[in-house]
C-alpha cells in the first residue's frame, strides 16, 4: 500500500476543466487530483457533470478548456484506444458488456493490450474461482447475465488490462442493495491490492464509506471536497450535494 502522497505530482491531476455540449456547460473550472493508491469518490445528483468528468479523463469527451494530466503527461482527447494503454481503465455507466460475446470472450477482451497470454489465462481462471457463477456460464452470452453479474464482469474485464487507475461510473446504478454490497466488497479487495480508484456515485453514503477522499459535484462545479470521514460529518454536505450552497468550497 502506497497511499501516501510520496511523490510531488499526483497520479491524476485536473486543473480548470471545462466541458460544454453546445450551449450547455457540463463542467466549469473543475480542479481535482488523485494520488497513487488512493480511492477518491465523486458524488453528486443526476446531471451534476460526473459522467462528463470521467468521459473527459478517458478521452470520450473533448474538453473546452483546462488541463488533464495522468502520470505527469497530458491526456489527449479522441484517442480512446490509448487511454487503456496509458493505464486508465473505465467501467462506464450502464456496464456495457459485449452482450453477444461470451463471458470468457468479454474477459479476454479486457486483456487486449497485453501479450502475456498465459498469465491472463491464470488471472481469468482465478476470477472464475472467486465468482463460480460466472465460471459456470463462461461460454454463455454475457448479455444474459443479471445486472450484478454483468457489473462484476466489467470490473474484472477492466482489471485485466492491469490499469494504474480504475474509474467506475455509477457501479451501483440499478442494482439491488445486496448486489451493491457485493460490488463494493470487490472494490475494497481491489483497493487492498493498492490500485488507485476513482469512483463516481449518486449513492453518497456508499461513496463516502468506500473512499479516502470525496468531491461533491453539483451544477458542473466542485462544491465541497475533503477526506470522506470529515465530509460525512459535515453539516454542509447535504446542502452541497443538493446544490443549496453556491460558493465553491475552499
Amino acid at each position, binding site marked *: 500500500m502506497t497511499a501516501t502522497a510520496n511523490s510531488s505530482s499526483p497520479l491524476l491531476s485536473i486543473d480548470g476543466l471545462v466541458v460544454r455540449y453546445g450551449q450547455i456547460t457540463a463542467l466549469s473550472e473543475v480542479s481535482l487530483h488523485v494520488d497513487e493508491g488512493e480511492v477518491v469518490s465523486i458524488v453528486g445528483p443526476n446531471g451534476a457533470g460526473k459522467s462528463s468528468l470521467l468521459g473527459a479523463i*478517458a478521452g*470520450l469527451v473533448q474538453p473546452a478548456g483546462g488541463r488533464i494530466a495522468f502520470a505527469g503527461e497530458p491526456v489527449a482527447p479522441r484517442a*480512446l*484506444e490509448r*487511454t*487503456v*494503454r496509458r493505464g486508465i481503465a*473505465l467501467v*462506464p455507466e450502464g456496464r*456495457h458488456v*459485449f*452482450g*453477444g*460475446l461470451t463471458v470468457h*470472450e468479454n474477459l*479476454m*477482451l*479486457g486483456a*487486449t*493490450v497485453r501479450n502475456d497470454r498465459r498469465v491472463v489465462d491464470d488471472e481469468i481462471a482465478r476470477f472464475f474461482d472467486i465468482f463460480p457463477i460466472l465460471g459456470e456460464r463462461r461460454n454463455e452470452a454475457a*448479455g444474459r447475465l443479471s445486472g450484478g453479474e454483468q457489473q462484476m464482469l466489467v470490473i474484472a*474485464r477492466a482489471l485485466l*488490462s492491469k490499469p494504474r487507475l480504475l474509474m467506475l461510473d455509477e457501479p451501483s446504478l440499478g442494482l439491488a442493495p445486496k448486489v451493491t454490497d457485493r460490488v463494493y466488497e470487490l472494490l475494497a479487495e481491489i483497493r487492498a491490492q493498492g490500485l488507485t480508484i476513482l469512483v463516481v456515485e449518486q449513492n453518497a453514503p456508499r461513496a463516502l464509506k468506500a473512499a479516502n477522499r470525496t468531491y461533491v459535484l453539483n451544477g458542473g462545479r466542485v462544491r465541497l471536497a475533503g477526506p470522506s470521514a470529515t465530509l460525512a460529518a459535515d453539516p454542509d454536505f447535504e446542502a452541497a450535494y443538493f446544490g443549496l450552497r453556491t460558493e465553491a468550497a475552499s
Partner: protein
Amino acid sequence: MQMIIQVLADAFSLGGLYALTALGIGLIFSVMRLANFAHAEFVTVGAYVLFALSGEPLVMGVAAAILATMALAVLTERLAFRPLRNADPATMLISSFSVSMFLQRLLVFLVGSRIKTLDPLPMLNNAVTIGGVQVSSLKLVTIIVCAVLLAGLTLFLKKTRFGLQMRAAAENFTMSRLVGVRANTVIAAAFALSGALAAVVALLFAAQTGFVQPRFGVQLVIIAFVATVIGGLGNLFGAAVGGFLVGIVSILLQAFLPPELRPFREAGLFLVVILVLLVRPQGLFPARGLKERV
C-alpha cells in the same frame, strides 16, 4: 429427382454467391454502420482484373484480382470513409453512393462501357454425374468455395484474437476502443476482408455470366443488401443466411412459377422480402447493440 438436384445446385450456388456478397457488405456495416454500395465496384474491378489477365495462369489472375480489390477497398476506406467516421449515417450513405458512382464512371472512362467476354474457369464448363444426375461443375465448385470461405471466416471471427476484436467492435465500437481495440486497424481489416470476398465473388460470378461490364456488380450487390436486411443488419450470421434464402427463393420462383409469370420472379422475390420485413422489421436475426454506437 434429376430436376430436384439441379434446382438445389442452382439454389445453393446462387445463394452462396449472395451470401458471400452479403458477408462482404455485412462485415463493413457491422464494424462501422456503413452501407457500402461501392462493394458493387469492388466486385466489378475484380472481374476486370480477371479479364485483363485472361491469358495468364489462373492463380496469377485470381491473386491479382484479390490484391487489387483489397487495395481498392482499403483505399476507399482511407480516403472517403475514414474522415466521415463520426458523421451522420445519412452522410455516410450518400458518400458510399458517391464512391460507387465515381468508380463506375471511372471504369466507363478507363475501359469503356462495352461488354467484355471472359471465361476465367474454363475447366469447369463440363458437368459431373452424381448418382446418375448431371450437375454443372461450376455450380458444385461455387457451392464448395462458398462453404469453405464461410467456414474460414467463421473460424477467423470465433477463434482468433483479431476476430474477437472485430466482433467486439461490431457490437459496441466505443467500448471496444476503451478496452484497447485499435479502431483504425479493425476497420481497415474489415475492408480488406470485404475486398477479398468481392474478388472471389467476381471470379465465380464472371464464370457463370461469361462477361463483364461497368455495372457488373450492381445487381448482385443490391440483392445482397436485401439479403443482409432480411438476415438482420449488422449480424454476419444473418447476412449469410439471408444470402442463401434470397438465392434459394429466387431459384424456386424461377423453377416453379408458371412460365408466363417467370419474367416477374424478382417481383415475387421482393414481395417475399416485404412480407418478411413486415413480420420481422429487424430482420430474421437482429443484431445486438445497433443503437449503442456513439
